[in-house]
């Protein structure tokens, strides 16, 4: 296994380089342009626009820009944002806590809801409990998050006046009061995202459990006189976990990528919001860095998933 991991890590380097190249090419070819911010404003005449373009280095061919960017990135220099003239590293660093506090927590909540819900749903297949859980799950992924978000705002912020809907990123948790405040401002986005994640995961867990429940080894375990609870948790769940591990491994990088809609609806200055605004403003240094960090996480977590497969199912061997 150690050799396999070492080899995979080695392969990760050319993989990431290839990803960075394709990504940069896409950014260069896409019709996004930092100067589009000026609109058709006659107060920013063509010469001025040309000077700005030069100052941003956009007059150079993109392969050259790519080489410059990638060599700096490898050295840990993420570059400077076109829009804010701030270091991209700082921008990401400023937003990471917000993303973790909302999207990260929501993901954990989602997983914590999904596992028991999926379990119950499968063990009590076709019971009223199963139908209720399933119905919620269907609603969860067919109703978009912007809709649930706005609905919650209308109910809890506007009608009832219980919760704020403008996230304050300057809130520092120092005492109980500020902790409560943090809870109040993040409970709605966490609910929206957590329920969405839970809805999807529940379906997968239920489906996978149903695959395994009728299998021989389960019957064997039962016939040995093991408690039903032990059978389900020790045997079936463990064997059903492979797809769940896959999905969770795909989900963790997505947490870093942020939840664009929900962040927007609740004014959470997270990384998803940073990425989308930067795409809108053609802020290539920011987009490229966020995407590359995301890519590193994707590669890393897919490797972790592969290692976990072998732990969960010792028969899995990698070539």
């Amino acid at each position, binding site marked *: 296994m150690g050799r396999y991991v070492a080899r995979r890590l080695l392969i990760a380097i050319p993989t990431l380089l290839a990803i960075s190249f394709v990504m940069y090419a896409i950014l260069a070819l896409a*019709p*996004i*342009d*930092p*100067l*589009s*911010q*000026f*609109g*058709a*404003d*006659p*107060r*920013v*005449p*063509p*010469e*001025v626009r*040309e*000077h*700005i373009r*030069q*100052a*941003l280095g956009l007059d150079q061919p993109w392969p050259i820009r790519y080489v410059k960017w990638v060599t700096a990135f490898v050295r840990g220099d993420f570059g*400077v944002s076109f*829009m*804010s*003239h*701030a270091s991209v590293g700082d921008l990401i660093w*400023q*937003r990471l806590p917000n993303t973790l506090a909302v999207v990260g927590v929501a993901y954990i909540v989602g997983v914590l809801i999904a596992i028991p819900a999926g379990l119950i749903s499968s063990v009590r297949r076709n019971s009223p409990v199963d139908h209720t859980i399933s119905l919620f799950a269907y609603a969860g992924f067919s109703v*978009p*998050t*912007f809709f649930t978000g706005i609905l919650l*705002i209308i109910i809890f*912020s506007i009608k009832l*006046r219980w919760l704020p*809907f*403008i996230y*304050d*990123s*300057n809130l520092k948790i120092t005492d109980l009061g500020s902790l409560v405040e943090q809870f109040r401002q993040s409970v709605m986005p966490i609910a929206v995202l957590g329920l969405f994640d839970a809805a999807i995961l529940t379906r997968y867990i239920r489906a996978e459990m149903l695959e395994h429940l009728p299998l021989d080894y389960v019957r064997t375990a039962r016939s040995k006189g093991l408690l039903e609870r032990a059978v389900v948790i020790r045997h079936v769940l463990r064997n059903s976990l492979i797809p769940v591990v896959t999905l969770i491994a795909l989900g963790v990088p997505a947490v870093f990528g942020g*939840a*664009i*809609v*929900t*962040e*927007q*609806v609740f*004014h*959470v*200055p997270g990384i*998803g*919001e940073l990425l*989308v*605004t930067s*795409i*809108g*403003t*053609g802020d290539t240094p920011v987009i490229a860095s966020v995407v590359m960090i995301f890519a590193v996480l994707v590669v890393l977590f897919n490797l972790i998933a592969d290692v976990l497969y072998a732990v969960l199912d010792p028969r899995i061997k990698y070539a």
Partner: protein
Amino acid sequence: MGAIAMLVAACGQSQGPSASASTGASASATPAARGAGGDLKILYWQAPTILNPHQATGTKDNDASRLVIEPLAAFDNDGNAVAVLAQEVPTVANGGVTADFKQVTWKLKQNVKWSDGTPFTASDVEFTYKYICDPKTAASTADRCEGVDSVTAKDPNTVVVKYKDTNPFFYQVGVGFSNGILQQAQYKNCVGDAAKNCPADLKPIGTGPYMVKDFKPGDTVLYDMNPNYRDANKPFFKSVTFKGGGDAAASARAVCQTGDTDYGWNLQVEATVLKPMAAAADSKCTLLTNYGSSVERILLNFSNPDPSLGDNRGEPSTKHPFLSDIHVRRALAMATDRNAVAVQLYGDGLAGKATCNILTAPAPMVSKATDSLDVCKFDKAAAEKELQDNGWVKGSDGVRAKNGVRLELSYRTTVNAVRQKTQDIMKANWESIGFKVNLLSVPASTFFTNTSPDGANHFWTDVEMYTNSGDPDPTSYFLSGWTCNQIAQKSNNWQLGNYARYCNQAFDDVVAQLKKETDQNKRNQLAQQANDILVKDVAIIPLISRVAPTASGVSKSLKGIKVSVWDSEMWNIADWSK
């Protein structure tokens, strides 16, 4: 995915800065103790990303920097200059401006201090223009330097601005949001190539009522009041939180329904949403409605955008198959129901009102002749007659054609709920008189760029729609928008401003005169004349005069706000109180 759409939609709402403009009186507010108020909360759905107004990429940056960085004078709502850092506004009458409009002498206020306690002097002003005018600095406000011979500090309290030629717009240097004065000491190492990596841009030192305490680009600016501010009784608020993000609808809810914020910027939502919110019995907001030069307009393509033309597509050498026919253009104009758009979508004065002028401010320059023009009246019967009489006959599919040319047009604009509904209304009317209309929409970032084939500059459709606005002096607005040598085309990389490839010698002549004329009355007449040529010739279809700078909503308890359509809406924030 859905999120992306919302964001893109939000971006689509900024079509370019608004205002700037002319000369005037002074503002005074109720005397109150400095810092007596608590925290002032401002919410912008586009977050500021930089606080140096000369590196700004949008209104959000200009406005956020205005709490700190001030110009010599501001423009008030009538386009009059109001002294800020200047002792008084120079005019020909007080001897500050020479009779040939070539030299302006600015006397600065005495004893003004930067927020760090050091004195503000004329050399800061001289330095600021050195910074802006260095092409390598790549300042987005560099147009202020066009035609400027020199900006020099004559003594610590006097600045002399010299223009190369007669400049009727002699407040080009010194007045309005493009003219914020930077501190030389802080910026001296940020000129030229060094400008793009300058930490001062995130925390500039200014002379304004507030100073930056903390700035998270793209998120929040926190300000404290400036202890060295020149007026001992101001500002009223102890601190300001300038938050960015979300969308216009959420801002409207925050300022009108929950009162979570005191000031909600640019509530550009459908009138059917905004009106009930603002009018509700428990509404916490009032809406700012001032009209400036922002006009939502429909451009008609004079070149041929047919892709089969290859490299010649949309070049000025080609002619549009049917929009080059004045009758077709007139028919489109007559079938344009701008009143329905104004009433249904812009709330009949809430966010905009119908207009048939392309120049809607300053007031003395606005034409009154257009009201009575037939192309300004919604009359579908007349439009159909115009087409019928000129050989455009309906085919079996209800689409008119002449000599095999069908009246089928493509109509593009940015992604924006109000714009898409405007398109729907236009389509319904135009199709009813025998056009076939195909609608297109793209995000603002793809639309407002010379690098995208879907952009306004390429104009590879038949009709397109967006908002634009001008300075208090409309010369550059007319010049860049419609004169023959400003045509956007391949050879200039679509950088120039005449996207419609309109070319009319009579119009060029009027604009050339306007550029030279120094007599204000004659200038007013010339501006009206230029406007009327464009409207009569249907070079463009003006639709809506939009609230400017933006349709912002403010808490009912907030006092002292004076919006200026020609300057940043934060221009008099020192006078705000509760």
